[in-house]
């Protein structure tokens, strides 16, 4: 049997695409986090730009809507001096029936150097990465329920910023784990970076039982789930999941799993509260928590730019 190489890494083990955190060695993750630290200060300079991607064209291909992620990728690419082209795919060629690979072939003919891809189908960025020219790099900005690796990395950056060390932490991820690519990316990253206790907290309908196989402790009881946690990651409850068989109502969910000051008091006194955004106040998180002293939700956004700069400059500097 042929040994299958991780498609994100070249023969030297260097990152050439970022498709998923799963399967990436700890050293690769740590290097991205270290590099992001350097870029964080670029935003505070007189000149908020470095020339690493000067002359390169970055295409933002968002087959699925997103404002925050697309904007932070755009800012990150521009701070690296790249030219950024945003394509609102949902409203263009695909709507006219063009296939994904035809779209990519056409954009490649426009001399794209990097694709930042968000797609509702899990695996779409892998398909693109397999078909681009060797000098073209692909970043997964969220594919289906599968992965959202830059969100996972910026969450790790945030945790490291406030907690310094991963190896003593209890991290609770709360909410709709089943449909969350953020949760999946976070779990892989936390495990790779050596977090000893990762908890998945939520109702049976939204927390898959097979998580135990990934070394995750599944908790259907909120109090048990966040007790003594150092980090609480709240997930957005997606409206489209509401009202169906999975959940009775938003109010019901908030009563059981919404993060209120009372519930947060069970976690460690110095715990941090994270959320990938956009937040639904009064659905998964109480305003007093979202705006409270434990919340690091806005710093996450700031760190997200530096982390995306680190990802783009790292892969652009490595050859296939």
């Amino acid at each position, binding site marked *: 049997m042929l040994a299958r190489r991780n498609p994100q890494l070249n023969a030297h083990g*260097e990152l050439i695409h970022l498709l998923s955190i799963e399967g990436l060695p700890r050293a690769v993750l740590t*290097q991205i986090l270290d590099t992001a*630290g350097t870029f964080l*200060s670029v935003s505070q300079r*007189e*000149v908020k730009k470095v020339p*690493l991607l000067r002359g390169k064209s970055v295409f933002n291909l968002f087959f699925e809507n997103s404002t925050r992620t697309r904007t932070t990728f755009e800012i990150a690419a521009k701070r690296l001096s790249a030219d950024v082209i945003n394509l609102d795919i949902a409203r263009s060629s695909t709507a006219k029936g063009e296939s994904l690979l035809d779209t990519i072939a056409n954009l490649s003919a426009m001399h794209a150097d990097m694709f930042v891809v968000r797609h509702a189908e899990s695996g779409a960025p892998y398909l693109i990465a397999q078909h681009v020219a060797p000098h073209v790099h692909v970043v997964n900005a969220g594919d289906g329920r599968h992965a959202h690796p830059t969100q996972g990395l910026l969450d790790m950056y945030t945790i490291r910023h406030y907690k310094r060390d991963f190896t003593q932490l209890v991290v609770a991820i709360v909410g709709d784990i089943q449909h969350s690519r953020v949760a999946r990316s976070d779990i892989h990253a936390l495990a790779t970076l050596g977090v000893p206790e990762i908890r998945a907290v939520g109702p049976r309908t939204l927390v898959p039982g097979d998580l135990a196989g990934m070394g995750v402790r599944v908790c259907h009881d909120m109090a048990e789930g966040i007790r003594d946690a150092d980090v609480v990651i709240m997930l957005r409850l997606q409206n489209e999941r509401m009202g169906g068989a999975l959940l009775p109502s938003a109010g019901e969910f908030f009563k059981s799993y919404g993060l209120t000051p009372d519930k947060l008091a069970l976690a460690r006194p110095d715990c941090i509260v994270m959320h990938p955004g956009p937040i639904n106040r009064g659905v998964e998180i109480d305003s007093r928590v979202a705006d409270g002293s434990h919340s690091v939700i806005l710093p996450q956004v700031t760190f997200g730019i530096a982390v995306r700069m680190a990802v783009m*400059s790292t892969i652009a*500097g*490595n050859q296939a």
Partner: protein
Amino acid sequence: MSTLSLDAEALYAELLRGVRGLLRPGGVLVGIRSGGAWLAERLQADLGLPATPGFISSALHRDDFAQRGLAGGGGATALPFAVEGAHVLLVDDVLYTGRTIRAALNELYDFGRPASVVLAVLVDRGGRELPIEAAFAAARIVLPAAQRLTLAREADGRLDFELRGGAQGR
């Protein structure tokens, strides 16, 4: 290994003398990471200057990014003073092609417009590829391109030169 021996500590004493003559009143020291930063730290103390010197990383402005990618390590730029209007004395360990200095100047300018910049180095090894010169070099030697000369700092803070590659049979 080469028979060439460069006594980094003896050259440092020479550099200190040179920098004393170059540094303008109110001027600031900026060391290029990593070797130049070690030198700037020691110079700052030995010149009796207050606080810490500036440190600058050339990584974000390197012209070999497309070939080498991000050069890891060394630390980030940290300039604890306003660059705008400052008289800057830039310090590095080895001056070779001049490309690191070019990148460091670009990095410096991202923080403001200095009044002046002069360069002092421990060793000028020749081989310039850009019109960049040092106002002071504690030693000037010529090394073949295949050799790599780098400064190392021992655990006790002592400086040492390491010379690698290309010296066999010469």
